[in-house]
Structure formats: C-alpha cells, structure tokens
C-alpha cells in the first residue's frame, strides 16, 4: 500500500480557524494524524503582567470569541473566591441566564458549521438564522452581540427588568420551537447519519485516558459536566447532564443538539426563580492566594488557575480551555477513518483554536 502524507489545513473550507493536521494515509485510510498549532497564538496569559486584575476581565473575554461570557464568569468566580466576596444571588442567576444564552448561540453556530462540514447547506443556513435571534437577545439584554461584558468582580453590570424577562422567555420559546423543527433533520436524516454514524469513534476508556472534555466526553458515555458541581446558581437548576454512549460524531452532535434545547429550559427555570435584590456588591482590596475554578463552557470544562500576591497585577493566570483538552482525543479519532471524513471529525470536537492557543 502506498503511504501518502496529506497536509490538512491550516486553511480549509470547513475550518473557521487555522489548525494544521498532518495526516498520513495508506490509500484512503488514515494511519496517523499529528496536529500542529501556533497560527493564532497571542500570549494573552502574560497580559496579566501589564493589565490589573480588573482589566483582565475584558482580556479573558477575548480569549474566545464565542463563549466570552463564560470565560469572564469563570475568571471573576475565581477572584471572588480568593477575595471571599459573597455574590448576590440575583447576580448568580443572571450569570446563569447569560451563560446559557451563550451556550445556545455557540451550539447553534457549531451545528451550522457541522452541517456545512458534511455538505448540508440549507441546514447550516437555518441554524445560523435561528442563532441570529439569540444574538439579538444578548444585544438587547446585555448590550453587545457576543462579547457582552456583563461580569464584574462582585456581580454583574446589567439587570433584567420584568418586561425584558417576559420578552426573553417568549423569544427563547420561539427559538426552541424553531430548533425542534430541525430535530428530525439533525438526528434522523439519512444523509446526516450516513456521514456521522460510526465516524471518529472514541470509547469511554479512551476519552477518559486522553482527557477529553465536554460533549466529547459526554458523547462517549461519561456523565461529566461542571454544572453538576453546582457553581453559581446551577445548584438550583436541577441540572442533569446529557449523555450519549456511541462516542462517534453523531453522538457528539446529538449531545450538543440536546444541550441547545436544555439551555432554553435552564433559562426558563432561572427566570422563573430569579430572586429580587442587588446585582453587584462593592469589592475592595486586591486578591491574594491561589485558586482553581472550573466552569462548563459550550465546548467542555474550562479551568482557570489564578495566583495573586496582593498587588495590582496577578502573579500567574493559567487558562486551560476545553479544545486544548480535546486535541489529544482528536488524534485518536482519526486513525482508521477515511480521508474524506477528516473535516467532519475535526469539526466534531468543536475546535476553537484561538481558545486553545490563547
């Protein structure tokens, strides 16, 4: 059999961001895959040396363009824990609402890109059409479409009044209805299944050993979701993780699709239980110590390690993003598959490269 090395990326029609994978194929079957990064490395972690710990909120929001709010929520959660700040319950609820809106729009974005990867253009357009309404929801409630910048140390900057809550509820319901209309296409369609079932399989043991995170892990049958730890107001949401067992691209897609609908449910619960009160507390002083915080991003578990010494700038800020954890599993998914499946498999981990390289 002839051995050929095919460079995949960094520029490829299915890739929203640059990642390079050196794929070794024998005829059409992949035998080896080696990823290479470094096309969008910015070194944002070192910006902590020149920006103070409050300004860093806006910096960490820009680690990822899609789940920016959740990055900031994780960061402020860590700083609050270090400083012993008691965040008002209303602020925690509002953080949940915006987090879930972010999850919704991120998953819709991914579902669209995924449909594009297996060549289903009309499905792609339809998902993005729905996503636009979620973006409008965020702009109307928080002031911006993606980088909504609502988190401050000690709470949130914006509040939702009663009219807005009602409007959000009705919009979310409508969005859910539209997503449900696509459920049969996404989960039962012949051509979708043909491209995704039994493609890029990763077993439960492999996923755990390779440190997979998020839908990659849950798609392989491991019920692990940081929201189960009940950070913020998630302890009141009665959260149950969504798990699929097959471990293939279809399972990962199904997890994300169902999570999109679940996000709507959580928003409804959060708005129904939204407590009265302040949205932020005044925080004085500077953080000192070291802390690890973890939250669940649309792509999986996000971990921040923060070390501070009581001065204006942080000592060390380390961000471990979910895609960073999902790249080793990707190298295990590819061997044995056909070259034509590479785009679908790479997309199935929901790669966010600017997150990965920071």
């Amino acid at each position: 059999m002839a051995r050929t090395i095919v460079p995949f990326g960094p520029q490829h029609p299915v890739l929203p961001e640059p990642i390079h994978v050196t794929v070794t194929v024998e005829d059409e079957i992949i035998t080896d895959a080696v990823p290479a990064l470094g096309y969008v490395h910015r070194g944002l972690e070192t910006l902590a040396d020149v920006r103070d710990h409050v300004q860093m909120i806006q910096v960490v929001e820009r680690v990822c363009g899609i789940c920016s709010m959740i990055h900031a929520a994780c960061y402020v959660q860590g700083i609050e824990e270090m400083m012993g700040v008691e965040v008002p319950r209303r602020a925690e609820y509002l953080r949940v609402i915006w987090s879930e809106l972010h999850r919704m729009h991120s998953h819709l974005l991914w579902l669209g890109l995924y449909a594009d990867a297996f060549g289903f253009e009309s499905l792609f357009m339809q998902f993005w059409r729905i996503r636009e309404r979620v973006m409008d929801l965020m702009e109307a409630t928080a002031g911006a479409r993606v980088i909504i910048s609502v988190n401050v140390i000690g709470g949130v900057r914006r509040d939702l009044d009663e009219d807005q809550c009602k409007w959000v509820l009705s919009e979310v319901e409508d969005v859910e209805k539209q997503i449900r209309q696509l459920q049969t296409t996404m989960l039962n369609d012949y051509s979708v299944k043909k491209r995704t079932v039994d493609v890029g399989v990763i077993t439960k043991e492999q996923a755990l050993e390779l440190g997979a995170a998020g839908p990659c892990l849950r798609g392989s049958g491991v019920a692990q979701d940081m929201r189960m730890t009940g950070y913020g107001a998630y302890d009141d949401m009665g959260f149950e993780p969504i798990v699929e067992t097959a471990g293939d691209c279809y399972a990962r897609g199904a997890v994300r699709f169902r999570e999109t609908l679940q996000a709507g449910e959580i928003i409804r619960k959060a708005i129904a239980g939204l407590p009265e009160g302040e949205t932020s507390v005044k925080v004085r002083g500077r953080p000192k110590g070291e802390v690890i915080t973890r939250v669940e991003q649309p792509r999986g578990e996000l971990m921040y390690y923060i070390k501070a010494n009581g001065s204006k700038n942080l000592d060390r800020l380390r961000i471990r993003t979910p895609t960073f954890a999902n790249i080793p599993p990707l190298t295990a998914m590819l061997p044995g598959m056909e070259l034509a499946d590479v785009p679908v498999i790479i997309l199935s981990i929901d790669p966010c490269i600017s997150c990965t390289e920071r």
Partner: protein
Amino acid sequence: MELECTTITRETVVDEVTKMKNDGYRFVTMSVVDLDEENVDLLYHFDKDLEVVNLRMAVPKKEPVPSISGVYFAAFLIENESKDHFGLEFDGLVLDFGGTLYLEEEVQRTPFCKYGVIRKDAEAAAEGTA
C-alpha cells in the same frame, strides 16, 4: 487562600502520576508558575468525580523534567507548551515539537518567564564552553 497540593519531586513524579492513572483519574492539565530567576513550580491537575487533585513540584529551570506524556498521552500538548513558554526541557516527550508548537524557530526568548530571559539554547552553549 492556599491550594491543596501533594508535593512531589522529580524522582517520584512519574510513579505518582502512574498511580493517579491506575486510580482512574483523568488528566486535566498542568500549570507552570514562574517562581524566581531559577525555579518554577509545576502543578499537575487531575480530576475524578468532579473533584480536582493537584500535585506540586518545584524544579530548577535549567534541569530537565521527566515527561509524563508516556503515562498520559494527553500531556504532550501542555508539555510542549511549557517548553515554548518557559524553556523547560522534558525528558522522554512522546511527541516533541522542539519548542515550535506556538513559536517560530528563530524565537529564542521564553516569553512567559517574568524574571529575566533565558535562552532556549543557553544550556547547550554553556555546555559547549565548559
């Protein structure tokens, strides 16, 4: 606030990590913290049933660290990253990008070191003159 950590050394790191793997822990990541001009802290983070377990190891920057990528393959990425950012050397790295995972070959600085700048090839040069 202090972080709960088990302190390990360079001699025991591979054994400790292997023990973690046998206990069914999932490798989350590793953090490198610049301590002073000479030393860095390596923190290994593991997860089991939503609980984080940390291992801490202080090492001098100039000396190579045993790689755990032989135990947890997933560690190759973060070890390569640390090599880029802090100029650390890892012994037995299964997939070695040679300090070019993020950076270009001509970059000689180790950008994440706060205290002074060490050259990646400083060690080789020092050995050459000695």
